[in-house]
């Protein structure tokens, strides 16, 4: 269990964050400049909080009131940096074992062989960092941090400097970290990574924690910006593949609140997938629509109507479907003409054709093990 409660002023940003993280991956999620990296730096001891308390498994790392401030080398907190920071003068093997030798033998729970197997590093051991690809470097960096047998692991956007292909290559390895038995703080501003890797989510905005909890719950209740385009809003739905209808060419996805139908994807039944639904792909009807080509019609409640801003033609509606919340982008004129009011029952219309294929392919990749979208 990692407990963080820190305050620190940095220029215009005032960080005041309090959260805890149990075993498994907890993502610190927020836009650039939200203070994510500063927070992990404070946990690692590279940045000193103005005040606060940090502890891992009962070991106090920092406590301003008690005057405790352990130096980084006494914290036993592993750190995977965005740029890897492998030692250029050492081989991969020596890099991996760098932190290992500082750990008392009795407290080592991971050995070189295990890490080499876990991260598939066998072929790289004799090489030097300069000859490695970006993805390989990050795998070694992860292994090096783990081999310091830390009580908690920090990862600061470890994929940020990699291209899409390298990300795909390394993500399956990162997925294995969730059950290492230690708290892992994973800093990211990528929805894709977070939804794929994190068990829990801490949302940060301007240095403050705005929400925290289980990833599925938060993502399906929250209006989010798109993984590809920050100006695009939408919702991430946690779903499960319920069945394939090869004849109709459709895959059925279940979620608590209903069912979505999307063009056939090659993901085994029962696999959990998350689906990104853009706000502008969601329409609203006040009655059950008939004679409609759309296949995805979900009954729900209108819980919120966005502001009546004269400068915009559109406004946002929040629809509660089961335990999920969908965002819909409609014209203000439509709100007036349909006489939409908060609390009324509505039908959300989602164009199945508009469930983004690229998003689906990401989702398919998330499902791992050969889950490729059909051409």
């Amino acid at each position, binding site marked *: 269990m990692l407990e963080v409660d820190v305050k620190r002023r940095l220029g215009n940003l005032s960080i005041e964050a309090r959260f805890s993280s149990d075993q498994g991956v907890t993502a610190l999620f927020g836009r650039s400049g939200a203070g994510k990296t500063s927070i992990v730096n404070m946990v690692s*001891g590279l940045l000193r909080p103005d005040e606060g308390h940090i502890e891992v498994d009962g070991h106090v790392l920092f406590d301003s009131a008690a005057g405790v401030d352990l130096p980084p080398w006494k914290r036993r907190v592993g750190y995977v940096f965005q740029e890897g920071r492998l030692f*250029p003068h050492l081989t991969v093997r020596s890099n991996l074992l760098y932190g290992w030798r*500082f750990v008392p033998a009795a407290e080592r729970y991971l050995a070189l062989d295990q890490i080499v197997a876990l991260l598939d590093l066998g072929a790289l051991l004799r090489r030097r960092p300069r000859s490695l690809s970006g993805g390989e470097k990050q795998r070694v960096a992860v292994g090096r941090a783990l081999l310091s047998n830390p009580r908690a692991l920090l990862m600061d956007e470890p994929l940020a400097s990699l291209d899409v292909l390298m990300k795909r290559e390394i993500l399956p390895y990162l997925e294995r970290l969730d059950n290492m038995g230690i708290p892992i703080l994973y800093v990211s501003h990528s929805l894709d990574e977070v939804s794929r890797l994190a068990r829990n989510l801490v949302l940060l905005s301007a240095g403050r924690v705005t929400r925290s909890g289980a990833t599925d719950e938060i993502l399906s209740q929250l209006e989010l910006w798109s993984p590809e385009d920050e100006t695009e809003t939408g919702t991430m739905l946690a779903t499960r593949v319920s069945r394939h209808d090869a004849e109709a060419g459709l895959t059925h996805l279940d979620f608590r609140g209903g069912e979505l139908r999307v063009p056939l994807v090659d993901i085994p039944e029962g696999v959990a997938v998350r689906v990104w639904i853009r706000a502008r792909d969601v329409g609203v009807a006040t009655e059950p629509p008939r004679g409609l080509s759309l296949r995805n019609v979900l009954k729900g409640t209108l819980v919120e109507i966005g502001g009546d801003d004269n400068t915009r033609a559109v406004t946002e509606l929040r629809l509660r479907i089961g335990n999920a919340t969908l965002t819909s982008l409609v014209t203000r004129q439509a709100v007036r003409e349909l006489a939409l009011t908060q609390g009324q029952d509505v039908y959300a219309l989602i164009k199945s054709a508009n469930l983004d294929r690229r998003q689906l392919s990401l989702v398919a990749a998330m499902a791992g093990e050969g889950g490729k979208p059909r051409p």
Partner: protein
Amino acid sequence: MSDWSLSSAEIEALRLSVRIATWSTVASLPLAALAAYVLARYHFWGKELLNGLLHMPLVLPPVVTGYLLLLLLGRRGLVGAWLEQTFGLVFAFRWTGAVVAAAVVAFPLMVRPIRLSLEAIDRRLESAANTLGANRWWTWFTVTLPLSLPGMVVGAILGFTRSLGEFGATITFVSNIPGETQTLSLAVHSALQVPGGEPGAMRLTVIIVLVTIVALVASEMLGRYVARRTQGYGA
């Protein structure tokens, strides 16, 4: 005896030169590394003054440096008298004094490349080492030192060659005593002072040129090897 065979005095001068230059380099390398580290990493009051002092031997006439050493470390000098009383250590007119003179003059040449290579180190690697459990000392020995090795090598070779050729400060501080302080350069000087000494001066000059070339080539090769080992970090 042909003109090209060395006299025993000349061989003695060669051995003495190499011994003095080696000791000068070995003794001042750690100090030069320390000075370079302080200058590269810390900001403090009087830093510019320290920097100026360290570089003084580079611009002062060597004779002046030698004279200052004599004032300071001579048997009646401020520090020299105390050293002799407490430790029985005498520098004046001894080969050890020649080592001191060479070291002082070569010092700034050693500090500079080391400082440059220290400044070129990505300090984030050091914080990475810290998070992996290495305290300051371990970090210094396992990350900082190896990565600054190219600068250390260049500094050591520059210091060695400069020490080998030292003349002015040495002759002023420890005089020109055959077998004790008469290095190659001093021997050339002596040879030129006597009628018919020119063949001797020529032989010694050839030796000096050869030794210098060997040192510089070795420095280049070693520097490149070390730089390759440390992947292009440093000088």
